[in-house]
């Protein structure tokens, strides 16, 4: 019975991904931005990467690799005060700078709205949160503004009221939905500085209102998109957040994905994260252009929603066999791998625009430090190294996901389940992994890899 269901599911998934893989093969000759000539054709890289992921999955399944979640107790400590307060000041200055530029109007290469929100937060903070620890806990300007407001009101003698009970049925869905809105702003609306200013002010007002309504920490952990996303990525990090005061505890990198507590909204959020990065890569390929041209906002919204829907559906199809926690544990490392593969260069190159911004902080044509004419450059980044890092990030993320998915699936498997059944149950997860590996590497390869001219 189970085997039949699994075969049908696996066949469906394999068919879907097979279809997706045929498309790249048909158009591998097209490149949008050819920068790296490799002796090996892209197909060799794809086959190698897919095989590596498949073999790593086979290895952990056949060997039935097990591991324990990191202990939930142990020594914890607050990061040093200069770091905590420094990050808070940096977060607040960043927020105030965006607002000041928004009020002053205009746009330029020194726009800090796009720089801070898309480059430093969406990419930089996400990577640090996933690798090191919960820096957003202190950087978060919304919480800092809340605390400053609360202190101000207390100072003038105004008392607060008891926060309302948060509707449990909402779970973390508000944060997941808000995350999807930000994804749309980034990938479809292509929100520039003026739009981002309006969004930031509106989102700040909304967040502060919700914090007042339900309590700062409750809304932060359930409804604030950045916090929810960065904390989810933080399951991978070497330092885990112990409580809302910011205490952290050391643990092995990646071990946090084995911890319990996965909920549907979390898996959806990770699927959105993985799907949005993948969509961003695919939408810049020649195949996408050939199929859809340069779609307008409505069409691109439909495409994005459809693509994210497919990824979420695939994720929940997998949850039916291995469970919610194993799916989350399998997908989260992939999200980090994709972040690094797709956006690390964006962070390293476009992040240099801060040099322009400090010379002209309000976009008035100033050149305070003589750096306003600086042009960000990636000339120091060898494209061969970039491709290698992308390859390692994608394959490494999938391998870690294979390990985490299997370990959690094995731990949460029904007692008495036979070895063969347990292996079959994990097959859909493996198929999704291999398909995603190939698809994302293909999209990355379109932008950077070309075969040498014959």
């Amino acid at each position, binding site marked *: 019975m189970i085997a039949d269901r699994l075969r049908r599911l696996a066949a469906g998934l394999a068919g879907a991904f097979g279809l997706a893989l045929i498309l790249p093969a048909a158009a591998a000759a097209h490149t949008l*931005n*050819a*920068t*790296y000539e490799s*002796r*090996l054709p892209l197909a060799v*890289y794809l086959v190698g990467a897919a095989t*590596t992921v498949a073999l*790593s999955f086979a290895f*952990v399944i056949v*060997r039935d690799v097990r591991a324990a979640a990191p202990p939930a107790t142990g020594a914890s400590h607050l990061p040093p005060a200069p770091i905590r307060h420094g990050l808070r000041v940096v977060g607040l200055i960043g927020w105030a700078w965006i607002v000041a530029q928004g009020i002053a*109007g205009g*746009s*330029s*290469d020194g726009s800090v709205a796009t720089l801070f929100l*898309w*480059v430093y937060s969406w990419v930089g903070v996400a990577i640090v949160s996933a690798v090191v620890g919960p820096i957003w806990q202190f950087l978060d300007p919304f919480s800092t503004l809340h605390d400053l407001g*609360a202190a101000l*009101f*207390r100072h003038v003698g*105004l*008392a*607060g*009221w008891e926060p309302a009970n948060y509707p449990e049925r909402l779970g973390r869905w508000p944060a997941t939905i808000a995350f999807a*809105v930000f994804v749309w702003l*980034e990938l479809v609306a292509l929100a*520039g500085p003026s739009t981002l200013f*309006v*969004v930031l*002010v509106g*989102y700040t007002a909304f967040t*502060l*209102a919700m914090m*007042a309504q339900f*309590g700062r920490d409750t809304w932060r952990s359930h409804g604030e998109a950045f916090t929810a996303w960065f904390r989810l990525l933080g399951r991978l990090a070497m330092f885990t957040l112990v409580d809302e005061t910011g205490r952290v505890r050391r643990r092995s990198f990646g071990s946090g994905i084995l911890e319990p507590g996965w909920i549907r909204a979390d898996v959806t959020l990770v699927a959105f994260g993985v799907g949005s990065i993948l969509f961003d890569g695919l939408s*810049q390929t020649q195949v996408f252009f050939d199929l859809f041209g340069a779609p307008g906002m409505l069409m691109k919204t439909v495409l994005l929603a459809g693509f994210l829907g497919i990824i979420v559906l695939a994720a929940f199809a997998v949850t039916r066999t291995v469970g919610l926690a194993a799916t989350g544990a399998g997908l989260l490392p992939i999200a980090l791998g994709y972040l690094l593969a*797709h*956006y690390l*260069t*964006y962070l390293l*190159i*476009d992040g240099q*625009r801060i040099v322009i911004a400090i010379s002209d902080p309000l976009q008035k*044509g100033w050149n305070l430090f003589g750096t306003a004419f600086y042009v960000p*450059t*990636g*000339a120091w*980044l*060898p494209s061969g190294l*970039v491709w*290698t890092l992308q*390859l*390692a990030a994608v394959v*490494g993320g999938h*391998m*870690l996901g294979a390990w985490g998915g299997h370990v959690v699936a094995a731990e949460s498997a029904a007692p008495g389940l036979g070895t063969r059944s347990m292996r079959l149950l994990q097959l859909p997860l493996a198929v999704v992994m291999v398909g995603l590996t190939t698809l994302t590497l293909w*999209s*990355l390869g379109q*932008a*950077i890899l070309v075969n040498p001219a014959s």
Partner: protein
Amino acid sequence: MSSIVLIVRRHRFARVVAAVLLVLLLPISASAHSELKSSDPVDGASVPSSFSGPIVLTFSEALADGSKADLVGADGSTVASATVDATAATMTFTLTAALAPGAYQVKWTSIAGDGDLLRGIVSFSVAAATPSPTAEASTTPEPSTAATNPPSAAATDEVATPPASPAASTETSSSGNGSDVILPIVIVLIVAAAGAFYLVRRNRPA
């Protein structure tokens, strides 16, 4: 848990949410840039020693207050500042004497009516007074990165969408050689081996 005393009562909650959503749904404003249409001399040009201007930059849209351009010599000193004709969308350097031989940059800043700001550099060089074929060759300028990549509306807007690769900035393609091919494979194998080693160790009974 303390909470900010904002005047948000339960029955006003829906209105607050609606107001915020309305703000978020505001139409995305289109931005306009005043881009450099042409320059005289053109970027990368080598002009004769007798060149005494004028230097003219022409832009695509009317220029707002704050638009400016400076002529900067090889030593970084400002040689002259342009006169801006806002309606004609031009910046003009009227030189009183011939420029000394050497490399020059025109660093311009245009501000459009809606405040959108662009910067760019036009590079040119003035040949030596008694040019010879050899001397002329040696004064051929190398266009600066900024000059070959003038900021544009597209460049500014691209910021909103992270590129999937550094292709936009990494302009030169690097050819593959033996090590280029081997390196990715070796790294992938090392990652695979490290992962396998780690998992085997974790799986080994204590």
